[in-house]
């Protein structure tokens, strides 16, 4: 995995910059801008975000509004994506669902990576009993498929809103990243700057948050990106079976569930939301994959 500090120094040397040592982020930004996949994915994602938030404003129909005379109508000038079985405008529904899926994906991913970083770093830094307890919990959480726990918990979170769902999603997805962070922390804590900080009397918590975690930020960023698509997929699957986002909220998953039973007779209720979901996950995956190649020197050859 990469050590951003060293990498930045390398690029600085290569470019012959002597006076100003670039910060941690300028090198990263430089790498990212040279990876077309990341730019393409980011553009796609930006387009989806704009569509999701601006789309409902442009649409003549309201989210909850039903057009009683137009049920299961195919796409037309009036209903851009057609209407569903009770006359709701599919375009507005899909865009609001897209909003929810994007928010859930982003929030859950950030939370997942944060939990993983803290658990992994503490386990790797302190080792001993802390490590054993934390890794034991991690192993136990890995044994249970997390969708199962989420599904079992669903009666308890019915009516609690989607934020609770996001927290649970994150609480059940951090294990693999935590193991990686732990491995990296074990090697990072032997570095000179960590030792120097320790001998200067910096507290353990401060070392972890100021010296260890920032130095694996590239790993964490890549991982957070990958977690976005994982969270969106998990949310979709759970919502499909009614264990995720509950009405009146809609997400792409619940829309796909509604549309899937009638996709042959009324294809617009199914294919628009499915297509957008696939484009969304693909955009996030492109960003994640490109970032990994840009930030991880070992993987450079692969792309």
């Amino acid at each position, binding site marked *: 995995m990469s050590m951003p500090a060293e990498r930045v120094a390398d690029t600085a040397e290569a470019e012959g910059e002597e006076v100003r040592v670039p910060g941690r982020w300028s090198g990263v930004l430089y790498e990212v801008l040279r990876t077309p996949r990341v730019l393409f994915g980011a553009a796609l994602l930006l387009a989806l975000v704009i569509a999701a938030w601006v789309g409902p404003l442009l649409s003549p129909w309201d989210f909850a509004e039903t057009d009683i005379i137009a049920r299961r109508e195919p796409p037309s000038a009036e209903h851009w994506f057609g209407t569903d079985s009770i006359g709701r405008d599919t375009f507005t529904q899909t865009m609001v669902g897209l909003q929810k899926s994007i928010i859930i994906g982003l929030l859950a991913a950030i939370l997942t990576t944060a939990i993983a970083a803290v658990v992994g770093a503490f386990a790797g830094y302190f080792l001993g009993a802390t490590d054993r307890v934390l890794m034991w919990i991690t192993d136990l959480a890995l044994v249970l498929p997390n969708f199962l726990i989420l*599904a*079992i918990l669903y009666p308890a979170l019915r009516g609690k809103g989607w934020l609770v769902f996001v927290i649970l999603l994150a609480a059940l997805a951090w294990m693999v990243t935590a193991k990686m962070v732990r491995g990296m922390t074990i090697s990072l804590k032997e570095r000179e700057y960590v030792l120097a900080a320790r001998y200067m009397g910096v507290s353990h918590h401060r070392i972890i948050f100021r010296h260890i975690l920032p130095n694996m930020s590239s790993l964490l960023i890549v991982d957070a990106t990958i977690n976005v698509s994982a969270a969106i997929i998990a949310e979709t699957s759970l919502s499909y079976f009614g264990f995720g986002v509950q009405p009146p909220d809609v997400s792409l998953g619940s829309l796909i569930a509604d549309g*899937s039973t009638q996709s042959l007779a009324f294809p617009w209720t199914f294919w628009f939301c499915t297509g957008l979901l696939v484009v969304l996950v*693909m955009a996030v995956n*492109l960003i994640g994959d490109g970032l990994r190649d840009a930030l991880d020197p070992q993987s450079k050859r692969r792309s």
Partner: protein
Amino acid sequence: MGKFLVRRFISYLVLIFLASSFAYLLAAATLSPRTNFDQLQPRPSQEAIEKELDKLNLNDNTPIAQRYGTWVRDLVLHGDFGQTIDDQSVNEAVARKAGVTLRLIIVGTGLGCSVGVAIGAYSAVKQYRGFDKAATAAAFFVLAVPTVVIAVSMREAARWFNDVTGVRFFEYGGEYTAGLDAGFWGTLADRLQHGILPTLTLALALFAAFSRYQRNMMLDVLGSDFVRTAMAKGLTRRAALLKHALRTALIPTITYFTFTFGILLAGTTFTEKIYGWHGMGAWVVDSITQNDVNAVAAVTFFMAVCVMAASFLSDILYAWLDPRVRVS
């Protein structure tokens, strides 16, 4: 080596027990079997409800610790998972349904992983050629599609195909035609017709993940000295790539297999539910909606055993591929 496996095995048993206990406690705390009886028409008398709930060990007036104690005692002493909410034996249901899920998982995993590894390794050898680009694009696309969507899309495509051709070529409801009497070959054909779509659904998702991963691992290994040495000492390119490069590149993939197995189980659940197979996965979704605590705990036990079996299998494969593990 033997000692290593035995130690692993014991820690697996402990983890399985803890995982199922955790699921039981969670299910007992969140699900409310009482509502099932309250909603019966005509509603039974209060006494009858209490009696039934007590009999099934589902009464929420009994402290949860006591219910858990009863559950553990029956499980450990008699190997009995209790009764379902309809007062059927959970053990019998498990015996009936586990086979369905195992058939699906084993065939799907075998197919998906081997094809994925083969394609991934081959694309690494042919890096940047047409085959590599096509395989990468396909894998990227499939990775962006949740298993649920793959399953539903394939079902709808099959329905469309049957409509257009007028032949029921694909079947997408259930594992086999009930009461079919068509001899051995007829039954086999019937099973294949039913099984092809669900198996493909599972295999596709695995293929995508494994071909990407194997390609990266293979590329890391291809440039290394030992592969060049192998070719320099006169091995054919094919032998060097298969015996030296692929063998080494498979080791991290095996660890990856353990991590993806949980996701695979989720995929199996969705596939079974969408194609109407009566396996463990479909059962757990139904039991959660029916507040069936004992069934949920039994399915969790089954899934934990599957995860552990996969992990045990990968330990053995690891030891087989990496001589260092065997020696130490």
